[in-house]
């Protein structure tokens, strides 16, 4: 039971539907940026997206090949472990169902990897069945580099550090290997509705 903070009233946002704001989060209209290092800037013809690891053959897409795949536009709420949530954000990208289609694997986990060395781990089931995308547009515009452009993972049902910026591929794995923030004490799974911010939550 938390003690009352004398003189604290808070500034609730009446317009935000409480059913859409997970515990400990507040709604913001801006789009804060949190990254552990410099924002990478590479020519787009460098770019590829690769699914590798526990697969017969790694599969890769160039930027043009990814853009030629069927895209989806989704409107979702996103939740950052640093406490902000942003409602009704609209993204366009390729569903991971499309990218994983036809890939035969016994893997149960994935590690997403990014330019700059960032990684994050997720159960494979959490990026299937319409739950995850490789997103390259935000609100109808190309995704800005500081927000993860040219493309980032979008897994809105988990805290946003799982939505790896500057994503370059997925490593399919039989075992679960903690990623970057997961190694630094953040929760391995990161469900915002269970407030799984840090290890042991």
């Amino acid at each position, binding site marked *: 039971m*938390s003690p009352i903070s004398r003189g604290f009233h808070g500034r609730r946002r009446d317009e935000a539907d409480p059913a859409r704001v997970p515990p400990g989060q507040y709604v913001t209209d801006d789009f804060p940026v949190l990254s552990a290092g410099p924002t990478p800037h590479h020519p787009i013809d460098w770019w590829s997206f690769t699914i590798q690891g526990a697969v017969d053959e790694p599969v890769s897409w160039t930027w043009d090949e990814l853009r030629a795949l069927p895209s989806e536009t989704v409107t979702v709420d996103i939740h950052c472990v*640093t406490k902000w949530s942003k409602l009704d954000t609209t993204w366009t990208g390729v569903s991971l169902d499309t990218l994983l289609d036809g890939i035969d694997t016994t893997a149960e986990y994935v590690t997403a990897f990014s330019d700059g060395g960032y990684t994050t781990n997720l159960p494979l089931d959490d990026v299937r069945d319409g739950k995850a995308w490789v997103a390259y547009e935000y609100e109808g515009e190309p995704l800005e580099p500081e927000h993860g452009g040219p493309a980032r993972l979008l897994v809105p049902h988990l805290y946003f550090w799982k939505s790896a910026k500057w994503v370059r591929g997925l490593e399919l794995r039989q075992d679960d290997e903690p990623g970057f923030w997961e190694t630094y004490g953040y929760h391995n799974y990161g469900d915002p509705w269970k407030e799984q911010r840090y290890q042991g939550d």
Partner: protein
Amino acid sequence: MERAALPRRLTWQLAKVVELRDETPRVRSIVLESPHWPGHRPGQHVDVRLTAEDGYQAQRSYSLASAPEDDHQLLTVERLEDGEVSPYLTDELRPGDELELRGPIGGYFVWEESMGGPLLLVAGGSGVVPFRAMLRHRVAAAWDYVPVRLLYSSRSLDDVIYREELEQLDVEVVLTLTRRRPAAWMGYRRRVDETMLRDVAWPPEEEPLVYVCGPTPFVELAAGTLVTLGHDPARIKTERFGPTGGR
């Protein structure tokens, strides 16, 4: 990127406000006594949780400004005009009040001697807060043979946080004042840019370890420019905060 050991579970704990210190007209430090403080590494942060009478709660993250060797935990908070938590911490909080804390959190934006140097710290505004922890730790642990430079961008001299203390921490401080300067000011008088970083930073061949902390546009520019100058992105650690980022 290197890996760290897995820490134990983080629980909420009560800390008592011992003292409040005005650092600048908009920034206040909170001296806290936390009987079960588990210790921390310089650069880590804590979550602070406030609870209203009707049970409503708000949480934000703040960098620890104290060194692990210090007797108390210190948070330094900038008042954000439209903030929900920072105006409470800077205006309402009194000595004797209790604050709920959870931490320490984060292990990447941390400096310890084993990580080496030379150490270049680049701060925008209240981005200097985690650097105080690193600089005090460097002195307390007698690691002051690691060369360190702090490039600190502030609106004015009055807005410089820890101004007197920085002079005692055996660190080379380069200030740039972006909005107002004393009449006789001889230092930089503009935003951090490529020329300034080239002048202040060790050259890339000396492989400085770089930490950049400040508002998002400041960090984007400073870190991006250092990469352009030839510094290894893997040796540049950043921490960004936005208007609503809360720290």
